[in-house]
């Protein structure tokens, strides 16, 4: 085993930390790009989860692996669209500070 020394829990701690870091980032960062990055963090923590579970608990099938592959691909697509919209935002608002993007409320 390649990483026989490292127990599964350690991976899970990392993924959990990443998850919450992502959530925290999403809630606190003001720059839209950074927020997008925080989302990526969340998705990557999910990827780690899938991979680790697959590798450690259910090594006979590859469901986890495939799942993370698709997540990565979709995340890329998502980022593409998001960034396109962010550019559009910049055109209209001249900023990409998320707090300023609140023309619609109540």
């Amino acid at each position, binding site marked *: 085993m390649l990483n026989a020394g490292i127990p599964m829990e350690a991976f899970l701690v990392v993924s959990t930390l990443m998850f919450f870091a992502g*959530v925290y980032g*999403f*809630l*606190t960062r003001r720059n839209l790009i950074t*927020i997008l990055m925080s989302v990526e963090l969340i998705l990557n923590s999910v990827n780690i989860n899938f991979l680790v579970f697959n590798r450690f608990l259910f090594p006979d099938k590859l469901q986890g692996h495939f799942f993370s592959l698709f997540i990565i691909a979709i995340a890329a697509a998502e980022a593409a669209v998001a960034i396109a919209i962010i550019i559009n935002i910049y055109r209209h608002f001249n900023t990409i500070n*998320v*707090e300023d993007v*609140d*023309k619609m*409320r109540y």
Partner: protein
Amino acid sequence: MSGFQYVVLIPIIPFLMFLLIGLVGHKMKPALAGLIGTTGLFISTVLSYITAYQYFFVSGKVNGVYEKIIAFNTVWLQLTDKLHIDLGVLIDPISVMMLVVITTVSLMVHIYSNGYMKGERGFQRFFAFLGLFSFSMLGLVLATNIFQMYIFWELVGVSSFLLISFYYDKPSAVAAGKKAFIVTRFADLGFLVGILLLSYYTNTFDFVSLTTPGCPAIVQAAGITFMGISVVTLALVLIFMGGAGKSAMFPLHIWLPDAMEGPTPVSALIHAATMVVAGVYLVARLFPIFALTAPSALTIVAYVGGFTSLFAAVIACTQNDIKRVLAYSTMSQIGYMMLALGVSGYGGEDGLGFMASNFHLFTHAMFKALLFLGAGSIIHAVHSNLMTEMGGLRKYLPITHITFLIACLTIAGVPFLSGFFSKDEILTAAYHHDKILFFVEYAVAGLTAFYMFRLYFNVFWGEDRHYHHTPHESPLIMTLPLMFLAFASIFAGYLPFSELVTSDGAGFESHLEMPIAAASVGIGLLGIFVAWVMYKKPSGAPVKMATTFKHLYKWSYNKFYMDEVYLFVTKKIIFNNISKPVAWFDRHVVDATMNGFAWAANYASFNIRDLQSGQLQKYAFVFISGVVVLVLSFVYFFMN
């Protein structure tokens, strides 16, 4: 079986007249409407006389007892399995007697009105209403069951309302009509509850079965008590409340004086001779139950009657409006009748009071109608109701004067006129039953003579007032009824009432008790004498009397402030302290609560709007908090 089916026509004819004149009357000439109405009633009158003759002298008597005959009966409304309201015709001595009274007086009033109302706006309407009233009153007396009586009772009330408010553009007339209706309506509430109570325990409305002595339903019901009182007594007292309302017994009398706002013929018909005695008739109708099962209710009747007669007589002494004097006099006389019923026993000579009451009812109808019609004639001549604006009229109104005098003598109990006989029977009955009541009535007899002659002297003697134009005697069409009624007043006393109208249907021998008769004649003459001294010529005596008995005079003049008491109750208590708060409560509490829900929703809506701040990150925060709260609460919920 009876051959009395035609009696149905007696009420029906006036009703048809009402419909005819009511619907197409405004297209007729007034005189034609008057003629139609009068003719219709004339037919009814003739039929009533035929009925009376046939019943009393031909076929009514079986084994020496006048039977109760159901001439006609039909189910009008089925209520429960046993209770049903019927419409029918019941013939027995009192109903036949009432037929005669009502049709006679009504006919006189019809004839009289042809002259009195001439040229008035709404002449046709007047005759239509008279027809409606006659129909209702006849239906009332012919009722075969207590609910039918209630039905016509209400109709009578409405016709009375319509006729009192006849001059509907006069606010006082409208107010008087309203008052009459509402006060009697209130009394009818008692009547209704009484009916409900009685019928629940006896399972019948039917008079014949209810008033048969020893009726099992009544006997059984008498045993049931409610709060210590027999339900029959309770029911009868409540029913009497209805009677007291219609008959203007204290304290439900306040509508009657005001009702004089109506045209005078109406006062003669409704508020002197017929409708106001409906209460007496009601008690008489249920008399066997009163006498045999609920004597305490009968005592109440007696005392209410006695008190009212005194009370009204006292007030009558000080009133200035001649119609009001007559109105109080009517109350007083009806008090007599009630009292007579109250002191009566059942059967044979015990039933003297019963007989006397009906006798007095009969004679009173004649002379009181005469008085009112006479007063109408006077008013017609001088265009005023006030005694202070009259005087010395005997020269101008000879026929009215004579007939009026006859009526006054009759009511004062001068011997050999009808009032003497009937009043004397009442006094005799009271004397044998209850001495207190006897002395009350004795005093009232004196007062009656006094106030009637006060009226008489003031109007026909004394000095001339300043009249707008010289008063002149009324036309023949008005004086004719006066003469007829004067005739009746004189001779009605000779009818053998004790043979015909008795509590159990069997006749008995009645005789005058000389001491009582003498005493009553004495006090009557005393009253007349006092009035003669005080009012024959203008003198300071009335003023002096008034100052001597200042308080009594003041209270009497103000009718013992009964109107004020009522006004206080209706205006202050009901209108201001019940209705207004109810209306306020409805708007500001009940309705406000409903609006409060709407307000709360809007308020909440406004207060949660900050949730929707437009900030993406706040949305995410709410999202994640939602997740956390859900997770924590459900983990807690399910894992414990």
